[in-house]
């Protein structure tokens, strides 16, 4: 499955990279690569079974701690 994700993300990068290089903006290229790298890492972590915390559950806990009486 990790190989499938690697191929998938690699394919997406290969498709968009030429247009980004043609654009000639280092900031665009860097932002794109950082965000794609982050997405790739998160996808791989999920695939190999690493449990990441649920984002909205954390928000719920904070709100319940602060506004418990109203919620």
């Amino acid at each position, binding site marked *: 499955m990790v190989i499938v994700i690697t191929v998938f993300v690699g394919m997406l990068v290969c498709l968009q990279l030429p247009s980004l290089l043609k654009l000639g903006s280092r900031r*665009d290229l860097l*932002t794109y690569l950082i965000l794609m790298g982050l997405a790739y890492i998160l996808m791989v972590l999920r695939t190999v079974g690493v449990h990441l915390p649920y984002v909205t559950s954390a928000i719920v806990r904070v709100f319940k701690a602060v506004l418990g009486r109203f919620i």
Partner: protein
Amino acid sequence: MAELAQGRISNIQLVLLLTGFLLGTSILILPGGDIHPDTWLAFLLGCGQGLILAFIYLALARRFPGQTFVKIAEAVWGRYIGKIVSLAFLWYVFHAGALTTTNFLDFIKVSILPSTPAMLLVLMLVGVCAAAVWSGLEVITRCSEVLVPLTILFTLFLALMLIPDFKAANLQPVLQTPLPELLKTSVRVATFPFGETVIFLMILPFLNKQNKSLSSVVIAFALTVFILITGMLRTLGVLGNVAPLYVYPLYQATRSIDLGHILTRLEILTSINFLTMGFIKASVQLFAFVVGLSQFLGLKSDRTLVVPAWLLMSLLGLYNLPGVAETIAFTHTVYPFYALPFEVFIPLATLVVAWLRKLPREGQQP
């Protein structure tokens, strides 16, 4: 820059786009949390409160014509505080998009494809939205021109088909809900879905006639509340007191349609309504996030972020909440409080500060 927003949208397109956006997930998960005979009143009150919020957003958009919220925040709050305000707003847009994705995913996992891997489903669902965003705002609005009238048609058709199972006694007793309870439900309705119109602060600059946007918003709100009340009444009329026990009561009600054993299994129309309106909503949210983040980071091209935003929004959709019950509980309990700063305080404070500072100044680029 702004390749995604090429072409202007007309006021009728705004009506359909906003209606599609507001119906988005609320066409399946009825806003407000409870279904009882007075919910229609809570919907009307919530719509009224939502309209007040919409006036604030429109006033802000008219004060800074052609500017998205990211640019407005920077002009009003200054460079550094403006960046913080923009970042908070962009987080809300991104998170709201991920919540729409979670709702999509939960519904499909529970009702249609329980064994398909969640990641595959979510990537395909948001992938369609990303394709629309890549093609630009005009394509999303044109999709809404086709899909929203179809949704209205399907909703009315389903309401007609449910007449044989409809029991008017289920809609009684009327006006028995205590006022505080009714107001509480109406505030929930105001924040979800009507207050989410704040995301249109990233769309309104691309309107061709800004001065007629108010009438478009009012019509869109009226259409939405009409569809929601129709859906709520038909669900309550058919399911009665057990309606609140179902995760998706609207979907459950349409399952009972059976006209002469010929017209059956029409719940597929409810699924189509949800998927198409969810597509419009998620596309608008993804578009707003991509355009906003591009402006925030000062990128040369909007399209740079479409693919990464697609993947990240899908992933946050997977990591939002552990299950469908938690998602619906969050929508009805914590979300009204969570959304308040983004839907009320930030736009209102920005408008007040802009008014106090008399912005934009004459001769200054708005």
